[in-house]
């Protein structure tokens, strides 16, 4: 089996992270911003698993950490979407620019 260099995985993860970052910074819809955050978390997970695979495979630290990241991503998505629904109920918008009551 031909092995794929570790740097390929890292570059794919970096590209995925930057795409997610662009989404977070440039979108107006709160749900779409949350999608960008999920992409960034996935990129971090690819890095964790790739470093586990090319490092010490007998200890599964990378996979354990990736599972924790997935758990916290699920919690984050649940709370984030609940907040979006609550804002939609009270202010009738999901555009983050319109939610500016705390802006000085």
């Amino acid at each position, binding site marked *: 089996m031909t092995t794929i260099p570790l*740097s390929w995985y890292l570059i*794919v993860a970096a590209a995925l992270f930057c795409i997610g970052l662009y989404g977070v*910074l*440039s979108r107006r*819809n709160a*749900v779409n911003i949350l999608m*960008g955050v999920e992409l960034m978390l996935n990129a971090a997970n690819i890095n964790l698993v790739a470093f586990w695979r090319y490092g010490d495979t007998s200890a599964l630290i990378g*996979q354990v950490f990736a*599972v924790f990241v997935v758990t916290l991503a699920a919690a984050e998505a649940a709370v984030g979407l609940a907040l979006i629904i609550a804002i939609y109920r009270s202010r009738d918008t*999901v555009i983050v620019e319109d939610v500016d009551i705390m802006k000085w």
Partner: protein
Amino acid sequence: MMSIVFMIASLVTLIAALRVVTGKNLFHNALYLVLSFVGVAALYLLLEAEFLAAIQILIYVGAIAILIIFAIMLSRHLMAPNQTQRNSQWWVSGIVAGVLFLVLAFMLLQVDWPATAGAVPADAISLLGQSFMGAYVLPFEVASVVLLVALVGSIIIARER
């Protein structure tokens, strides 16, 4: 052979991710997000992390993507497909993300990474379960409490008053 599979999986992931952040129709963006998650699961399979690939499909595709689609449906009439989805600083964001990627790729190619992957233990999944119940039992319990608190909290936040 492996590198062809890697190319296909990463291209699917990245192109779907690009459609997520550039598409106009929010519902289509959510479907492309699912495709991107499946591509990441294929990358996990290539890295021989079968349990994580299954977790990726179950939690991301099965739970998080469905949750996002629910949120889109509940606020659907607000975002007509012809409405603009980008804010005024989108081009700055594009420059920032592109420059960050170029810097990261440049740095990554400088480092002399380990070239070959070691052998994965045959009982990797049972080792994973043992490390959750052994060395990492405290983070595991804390993560479950965090998940419980987050779910109860999101029910309270989103509840009808």
